[in-house]
């Protein structure tokens, strides 16, 4: 997932060793599956499970907490419209602990023991390299929230992504800082943050912005004062920081301390958003700084649409989202979990099957705008049109879904700012073409 806390696209993993482990696990899974011939939703009243694969415990548990609300909200919306082909949808949480090795065991176990799983969401950057091969081998349609550039051109047929890769995320951050003459860029040395680095550098270069510092740092250190001191001496007009919240907080507070209380404007990815972020940063930097000098850059979602309101209400109605709905929906790319489930459910309806090997090819058919197809904005509307014999294309919370031949749909980017209450408002929307042009 490109959003929500440090977890989202950290830890870019070399594919080879994990892929080997994953293939071994997947082979075991296939063997296990041979003993079971059941199809999701095969009995008339059984549920169809959507696996919500995310870190639900451990150091990255905040991310998992963010995925639960949209997942539960989406299945509730589908179920209130009658379910899929008479079956109720259900979210089936799968805890991958944000760890690639744990992910292999837990995802394999979930697939081997739950034959009702017909789709998957989550599958974040930390663990995607091990989870995607397992799910693809098991022929489970997945809408992944990972940002790894590895999947920009993938041949995995069951892989779908509505989250932009890190390269474009970095370019978006660079565009957000394009109005400054000089910028210092700091990246934590993990897979997601260093994934943003080429995009940031290319975008700043394309806009003629001087990059005074381009440095990679280790995360969660006691002090970055030597680095910060050197950055201050380059007098940047703005900072771009791609790091986890703790590291970002330490950097900014040390910048303030070493620069007589003054910190230039800073651009950070929306990945950093987590429950409690605003409260924590407000203590260090003050409300005025957060609302006027902090730009968050990430996937754009138009919050004025009716489908966004439906999404927000659906999230708020869930136990997981009851107290964090504002923060969850503010984490824009989380909306792709909701939309992903809607697209899968509509694909099942269009294919008249809950079996992934059947409905998977309908993922494009229910999202591709084409002459004669009816634009739909909800599951209920989509089912209605399908039953009327019409072709449909779904436009959801995250806008139009345009899957390319690699099953990627990147969407739009925007910069956001905090309001004094801690909510997030949109500042500038960057069209996909502009971001793509600025990317390397």
């Amino acid at each position, binding site marked *: 997932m490109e959003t929500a806390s440090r977890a989202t696209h950290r830890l870019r993993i070399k594919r080879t060793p994990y892929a080997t482990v994953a293939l071994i696990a997947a082979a075991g899974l296939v063997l296990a599956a041979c003993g079971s011939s059941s199809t999701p939703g095969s009995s008339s009243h059984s549920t169809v499970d959507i696996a919500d694969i995310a870190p639900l415990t451990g150091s990255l548990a905040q991310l998992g907490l963010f995925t639960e609300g949209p997942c539960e909200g989406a299945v509730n919306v589908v179920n209130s419209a009658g379910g899929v082909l008479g079956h109720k949808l259900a979210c089936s949480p799968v805890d991958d602990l944000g760890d690639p090795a744990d992910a292999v065991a837990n995802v394999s176990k979930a697939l081997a023991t739950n034959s009702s799983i017909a789709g998957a969401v989550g599958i974040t950057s930390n663990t995607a390299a091990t989870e995607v091969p397992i799910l693809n081998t098991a022929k489970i349609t997945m809408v992944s929230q990972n940002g790894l550039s590895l999947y920009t051109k993938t041949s995995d047929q069951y892989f779908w992504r509505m989250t932009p890769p890190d390269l474009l995320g970095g370019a978006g951050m660079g565009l957000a800082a394009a109005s400054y003459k000089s910028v210092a860029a700091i990246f934590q040395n993990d897979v997601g943050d260093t994934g943003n680095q080429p995009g940031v550098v290319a975008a700043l270069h394309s806009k003629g912005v001087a990059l005074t510092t381009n440095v990679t740092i280790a995360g969660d250190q006691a002090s970055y004062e030597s680095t910060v001191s050197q950055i201050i001496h380059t007098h940047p007009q703005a900072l771009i920081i791609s790091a986890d919240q703790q590291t970002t907080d*330490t950097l900014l507070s040390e910048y303030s301390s070493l620069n007589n209380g003054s910190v230039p404007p800073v651009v950070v990815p929306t990945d950093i958003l987590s429950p409690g972020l605003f409260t924590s940063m407000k203590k*260090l930097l003050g409300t005025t700084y957060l609302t006027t000098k902090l730009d968050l850059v990430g996937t754009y979602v138009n919050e004025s649409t009716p489908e966004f309101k439906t999404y927000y209400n659906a999230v708020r109605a869930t136990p997981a989202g009851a107290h964090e709905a504002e923060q969850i929906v503010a984490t824009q790319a989380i909306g792709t979990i909701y939309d992903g489930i809607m697209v899968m459910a509509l694909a099942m309806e269009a294919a008249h099957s809950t079996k992934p090997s059947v409905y998977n090819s309908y993922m494009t058919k229910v999202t591709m705008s084409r002459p004669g197809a009816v634009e739909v904005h909800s599951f209920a509307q989509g089912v209605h049109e399908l039953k009327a014999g019409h072709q449909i294309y779904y436009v959801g919370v995250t806008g139009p879904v345009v899957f390319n031949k690699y099953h990627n749909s990147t969407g739009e980017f925007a910069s956001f700012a905090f309001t004094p209450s801690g909510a997030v408002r949109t500042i500038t929307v960057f069209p996909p073409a502009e971001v793509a042009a600025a990317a390397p």
Partner: protein
Amino acid sequence: MSIFVSAIGFGIASGAVIALASLGFTLQFGLSNTLNIGYGGFITLAAFTGYGLIQLGLGPWPTMAAVAVITGLLSVLYYQFFIRRLILRSVGLGPIAIATAAALIFIDYAIVAVAGTDVKSYGLTSGRTFHLWDFVLSSTQVAIIVLALALMLAFQLLLRLTQLGRALRATAVNKTLARSCGIRAERVTSLAWLISGLLCGTAGVALAMTTQAFDFNLGSTFLILIIAAAVVGGIGEPYGAVAGGFLIGITTELSAAYWSPAYSDVVAFLLLIVILLIRPTGILGGQARRRHVAT
């Protein structure tokens, strides 16, 4: 020169916190022959207890004092009801270390259960900045350095000038012999765990003040640096732990300044390997013990 001097200053600031924590850690090892991985959990617990007290309106320095006392008492309970029982059952050094690693996980997740996984911050401003030659330090950092040095000096005086200090040193060198000399070794060991807990609590709050933001991984993240400082200095040697703490703090800042901040820890641990290859007992390992025996 400016970069060099300022990096030394920053290194002293971060090294002071590591030295404090490392002093407590090595004291536990010296007196109980226990590699207490759970020490990281106590660091985190101290930081979160401090957070709770600050939320209740207590000032940062009274908070540090209160947390030190609380952590000290918890440390004694931890020793009496956990570590000591393992030792009495003749559990080996390795299994005890594993058991304390389990304790670390238990403490960390107990904190998560109570406080959640959110990043916390005391929200303390760094205060006035002091410029001395090319040293640039905030008032908080200066206070932490002074406090760390004062605690280390107090510990030195305790060891050198008091009956308890002599008992501590004797027990550290040979517990059986100490007992035969009339020293109540168990009581002395408990007192050592109390002192190490006081240092751990102080270090936990100081670390949270230094990093400005922390989560439940705080102690686990810094435990490796704390152990490294103790090992570099000579495990079980209080002065060695202090020297190791400052050495690691300064090395990481210098490597960040002159090479890459992404690899600052790598340089620190490379230094550890080199020192151990040259002096397997650490910088002060063995020397102090021989001095204690002679005293």
